C-alpha cells in the first residue's frame, strides 16, 4: 500500500492507496480535494519517491495553495504546469501530455512513482468524453507496468453525472466528497465509493481537514 500522507485516511483505507492503482477524487470546488493531492505528493517526496504534479494552474498558484493548506515541509516535485515549469502543460495536446507523463514514469525505473493531477475537468470539457476515457486507459496501462499510483481530482459540478459515472469505472479507487444541507447546518462528507481491495463502502464519513490533520468520523443522520 502507498501512504496517502494523511494518517486518518490511511487508516480508513487500510494503510493507504493500493499499489499500482489510479485514484479519482470527486467533489465540489473548494472542498479540499487538492489537499489530498498535496499531502500525497509531500508524503512521496519525503520518502524519496518520484513525484509528478500535473496542473492546469501555474506553479506559483499551486505553491500559494500549498502554503495556505500548511503542507510543510514541501519538497519540490517534478512540475508539469501551465506556467513556471520546465515542461509546459498544454491541455489541448493530449499526445504531448501522455508522452510527458509516461516519460517521467519510465525514468523512475524501480522507484515508486506518484502522479497527481487536477487537469481531468479541463480535459473533459475540451475533448469528447470517449477520447479522454481512451487517453486515461492507455495512460493507466502504461503506469501499471511500473510502481506507480496516479491520483486525479475532478470537479463534481462541471460534468454530466453519466460522464462522471463512466469515468469512475476506469479508476481503481474513487473517493467522493459531498456537502449536505441539514437544517441550518452544512455537513462536509467523504465516501469511499470504490477502492480496489476493499469491499464497497455504503456509509459516509464526516471529515475536517486543518493544520495538516484530517479527522474522520462515521456519519449517521
Amino acid at each position, binding site marked *: 500500500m502507498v501512504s496517502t500522507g494523511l494518517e486518518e485516511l490511511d487508516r480508513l483505507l487500510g*494503510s493507504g492507496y493500493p499499489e499500482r492503482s489510479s485514484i479519482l477524487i470527486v467533489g465540489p470546488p473548494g472542498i479540499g480535494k487538492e489537499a489530498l493531492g498535496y499531502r500525497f505528493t509531500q508524503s512521496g517526496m519525503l520518502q524519496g519517491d518520484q513525484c509528478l504534479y500535473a496542473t492546469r494552474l501555474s506553479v506559483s498558484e499551486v505553491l500559494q495553495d500549498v502554503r495556505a493548506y500548511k503542507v510543510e515541509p514541501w519538497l519540490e516535485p517534478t512540475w508539469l504546469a501551465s506556467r513556471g515549469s520546465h515542461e509546459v502543460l498544454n491541455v489541448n495536446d493530449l499526445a504531448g501530455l501522455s508522452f510527458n507523463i509516461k516519460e517521467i514514469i519510465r525514468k523512475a525505473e524501480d522507484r515508486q512513482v506518484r502522479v497527481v493531477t487536477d487537469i481531468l475537468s479541463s480535459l473533459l470539457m475540451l475533448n469528447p468524453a470517449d477520447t479522454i476515457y481512451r487517453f486515461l486507459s492507455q495512460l493507466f496501462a502504461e503506469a501499471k507496468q511500473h510502481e506507480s499510483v496516479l491520483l486525479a481530482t475532478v470537479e463534481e459540478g*462541471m460534468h454530466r453525472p453519466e460522464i462522471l459515472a463512466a469515468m469512475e469505472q476506469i479508476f481503481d479507487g474513487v473517493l467522493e466528497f459531498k456537502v449536505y444541507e441539514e437544517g441550518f447546518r452544512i455537513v462536509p462528507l467523504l*465516501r469511499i465509493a470504490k477502492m480496489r481491495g476493499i469491499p464497497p*463502502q455504503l*456509509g459516509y464519513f464526516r471529515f475536517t481537514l486543518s493544520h495538516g490533520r484530517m479527522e474522520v468520523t462515521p456519519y449517521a443522520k
Partner: protein
Amino acid sequence: MPSEFSIVFLALWLSVVGLFLYSAFWAFTIRRVLLTGLYRRQAFWVGAMGIYFVSLSAFLSVALTFELNAFYVNLLGALIISSGFTLIFLWIDSTVRIARRSDPLFRDTLHWSKLRYLFWFVTLGGAVGAFFTSIYSGFAAATPFGGALLFGAIALLLSAKRSGDKTLRRHLRWTGLCIFLLWLGSQVQQPLSYHIADPYLAQSLTWPLVLAGAYCLYRSARSLIPLGHFKGTDSNVETTPSPPAAPMQ
C-alpha cells in the same frame, strides 16, 4: 405625519434587511466547510456584502426618510458609501478570479489579472470622490457605486459565460443580477427623492428593486457550492458505516 406608504415601506425595509442578513448567514455557514482559500474568500465576501447592504439600507432609509443632513450624518454616509466602493471591488475581484479557475481554458476575463490594478486605482478614486461629495454636498448627492456596480455586472456576466462549473455559473448569474438590481435601485432613488415629496412613497417605489436584489444575493450565497439533501429513504446516508475490512491484496 407618516403617510399610509410608511407601512409598505416598513414591510419592504424589514424584508430587505432580513434577506440580506439571511444571505450573510448562509455565506458564512458555507464558508466554514470550504477549505480552498479562493473559495473561502468568495464566501466571505458574499457574507460581508450581505452585512454591508444591511448597514447601507439601514442608514439610507433612516437618513432619507427623516431627511437628515447634519454634518455627522453626511460624514457617516461618506464613510459607508466610500467603503462600499472598496468592498464591492474586492467582491467583484474575488468573483472574477474564482470564475477564471472554473474556465476550462483558464481565460483572463477582461485581462483582469493585469487590469485589476487599474480598476483598483479607479475604484479608490471613486471612493475618495464619493467621500468628499457626501461631506460637502450631502450623502444624497453621491451616486453610490454607479460605475463600480455596472462594471462588476459586465465582468461577472462575461465570467459566467466562460465558466465550466454549473454551480458557479448559477452563482455568477445570481450575483450579476443582484448587482444589476442594486445598481438600478441606486440610479432610481435620487430622481424619485427629488420629484416625490412623500419620502415613504419615493422609497416604497425604490425598495422593491432592492428587495429583488437582496433575494438574488440570497440565491447567490446558496449557490456557492452544490448542496445535497438527505432523503428519508436514502439508506446510504442513514446507516453508520462499519470500519473497512483489511485489504485483500
